[in-house]
């Protein structure tokens, strides 16, 4: 469907290029978390980290402190991937 009057597009599509660009950056950040995991375990063990635009932008020992730091610095939480860096990932069965 490409109808410009589509209600989804009227919300999502106000600036589709911007949404797509932010999604690509977010995917890049998520990929960095996956690919650099050994380094992250070495540098930030048992810490919460926020990755924005492919770089670790903040770190903290607890989640509320991390969120507070990101917000204070004006880093958009919706575009930031946040993870707790466990030394040994727990097995996940969903």
């Amino acid at each position: 469907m490409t109808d410009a009057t589509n209600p989804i597009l009227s919300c999502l599509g106000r600036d589709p290029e911007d949404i797509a660009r932010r999604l690509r950056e977010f995917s890049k950040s998520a990929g960095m978390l996956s690919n650099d995991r050994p380094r992250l375990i070495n540098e930030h063990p048992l810490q919460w980290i926020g990755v924005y635009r492919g770089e670790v932008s903040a770190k903290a020992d607890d989640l509320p402190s991390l969120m507070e730091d990101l917000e204070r610095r004006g880093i958009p939480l919706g575009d930031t991937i946040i993870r707790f860096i466990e030394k040994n990932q727990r097995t996940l069965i969903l």
Partner: protein
Amino acid sequence: MLRGRFGDTSGRPYMEGHVLFPRLGWSGNVSFIFDTGADTSLLMPLDAQRMGINYGLFEDQESTLGVGGASENFIEGAYVAFADDEALYGYEIELRICKPADELMTVPSLLGRNIIDRWRVTYDKSAAELLAKVISSDAQTRLEG
């Protein structure tokens, strides 16, 4: 073609999407676990917190069943968008939102079959390829760049 990825050490399949709650105005990007075993998509507490969700504003909830047993989740109409090099694809779904709990803060959100069923999927872990060809969407707009 939408591109997902596999976690380097966990091997978990992920796909990133943009979530918007039109009634409430909250939005954000989410890295979903690609979960063909989930009947529907589920937003977990960490992603909900990043999006600034106020749980008191949800009006509906339902009981669902997972490996951890039954749980109560909120339900809210949402738009979820995915992008490839050519287009932005939008889906209108009822998104489940998991109630917050400390032990769930490290669990990723789930992309379930209410969206996956509308794609043709290539899942090839050995080639590190998680690809989805969009068969249908509720909205689609071409990207210039």
